[in-house]
């Protein structure tokens, strides 16, 4: 993963915002195709679209100011403020994540498809975070090692999903699951030492605001 430097200015922010919206929409399409008719797929699709669309709208309207005093305001303005407040308060992205995973699990097992969806979802979350905090891509630099380990685990999980079951029955699938969980746990135990050794944790990160 390479960083080409901080994206600055309104154009950079708009680009990150656009990337977040496109990634969200792409995740919905990726998880929903091909359309299935079982397990409340229609409801899940509706919730996923609603969550992604509302999250995108929240990002677009993030800069709209809200007056400090909202007494004696006209009705339409009061309704607009109510809309803005709820748009900013409800965790739309979390709802969209659950709905997208729900859509994906309704399909028969397709491990690499799911892995790509997982990578896109992480990208969606990171882009959303950058867009709402106004941070540049530089903010992700300290997390590169962890993201790389996570990508490896994602690939391992997909690989574990592709291994055929040793024998018929639920026990074989459970074994694969335990193996994947053990991998994640092991990585989680090792990772603090990896992160502690990163340039960020040593306090020598580049472009950090706290340095003098």
């Amino acid at each position, binding site marked *: 993963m390479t960083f080409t430097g901080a994206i600055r200015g309104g154009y950079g922010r708009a680009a990150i915002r656009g990337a977040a919206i496109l990634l969200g929409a792409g995740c919905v399409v990726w998880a929903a195709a091909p359309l299935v008719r079982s397990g409340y797929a229609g409801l899940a699709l509706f919730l996923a679209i609603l969550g992604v669309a509302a999250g995108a709208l929240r990002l677009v309207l993030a800069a709209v100011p809200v007056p400090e005093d909202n007494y004696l305001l006209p009705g339409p303005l009061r309704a607009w403020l109510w809309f803005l407040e709820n748009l900013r308060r409800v965790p739309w992205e979390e709802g969209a*994540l659950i709905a997208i995973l729900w859509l994906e699990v309704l399909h028969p097992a397709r491990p690499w498809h799911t892995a790509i969806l997982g990578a896109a979802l992480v990208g969606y*979350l990171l882009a959303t975070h950058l867009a709402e905090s106004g941070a540049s891509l530089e903010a992700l630099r300290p997390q590169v090692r962890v993201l790389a380990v996570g990508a490896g685990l994602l690939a391992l999980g997909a690989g574990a999903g592709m291994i055929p079951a040793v024998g018929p029955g639920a026990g074989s*699938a459970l074994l694969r699951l335990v193996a994947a969980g053990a991998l994640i746990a092991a990585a989680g135990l090792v990772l603090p030492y990896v992160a502690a050794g990163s340039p960020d944790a040593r306090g020598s990160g580049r472009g950090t605001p706290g340095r003098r």
Partner: protein
Amino acid sequence: MSSSTDQNDRLLRVPGHELELHWRSSRHARRLLTLGVAGVFIALLARRPEFAGVAAPALLLLAAGRVQRRPARISVRVRPSATRAFEGELVALDVRAEGQGGSHVRWTLHPGTEIDPGDVTAADGPQARFTFTPERWGRRQIGTMDVVLRDRWRLAEGHLTVILPKLDCYPAPADQRTKVVLRRLPNRLGEHPARTSGEGIEFFGVREYVPGDRQRSINWPASTRRGRLQVNTFAAERSQDVVLLADATSDVGVPGSSALDLALRGAAAAARAYLEGRDRVGVITYQWGGVSWLGPGLGRRQLYRIIDSMLASDSGYARGANFRRLPRAALPPGALVVVFSPLLDQRFVEALRDMRERGFHMLVVDVLNAEPPVRRRTEDRMARRIWQMEQDAIRFSLRELGIPVVHWDGVQSLDLPLAAHTRRPLAGRR
């Protein structure tokens, strides 16, 4: 560069406040947690390990983010560029955080009432500068400053709120250059030409030379015509006592241009104009429950004392006092009294009549710019008509007593309504 260094130095001299941070998960962390928990949950339920892989990056990010150091307290320094400002004046506010380690600092200004923060209300970095404009006079709370610290991975946010200091906002003085001058001035050096000869610079007349007169004062053309030495005489230059009387009993009209706004701005303008003319200026603020006053004085500092007195009314405040009980120091005999009032309070009008009968020279600036709303009902229209007639009657009765009443709308210069009285000395009818 040097100004920025000076700003840092000044800010460092301000004592810092140690404030406790309240840390909590960021929205980003909550989203990652949702993805991780949902992935693991689905993997367990559906027994599909690829979903555990989906959960892995999010859980790893959360686990690694736990090792970041987060300060429990930080020191915040806040320094406004001024503690006193006039309406519409730009004021800067410097803020600085210390002890935040490697955390990212974000400042968000929540302005107080009647404080216009301009376009920028948020800034990033350990040090920031905001600018704001107080819109209306009074002791104003600048507002509050929300400080958000984010760790380097932006998984946790530390919040604290700083209450910003108060700012004394003075009414912006209106434009006034000319001055109303009394016909009879006290025997005190000043800048107003008096009707007696003295040592001023304005020509007063010609008289016969007497031994001791300065030779340079000899008027040679007049001496040639009359055959005796004639000398020029010059008008004496005197100062006067001016007492500004601000009526704070009624505040009607649109906020920002209400009667009280106009009264204070007009009084501030008059104080500035007369003090520049080396007159002694004092102020009396008439309000519910009593009168507060500040004795006449000289100098630029007196302007700020006068405005402070009008805003705070702390010193010399006498609850239930009336004009009769005011000491001579507050209302010296022979002073010019300039009144700024909407003339809505009948007791205040009676007090003006009383002062006039006691021989004070007065001038009323009517600052009423609001009327009862026009309604369709006959009773309402009749009431409005009666109110207007009462107002006309009040002004007529004051004029009959020899008190000039001029109207000022607060927009134009005060010189315009006062023009008729600034061209010639004001002579009160006894």
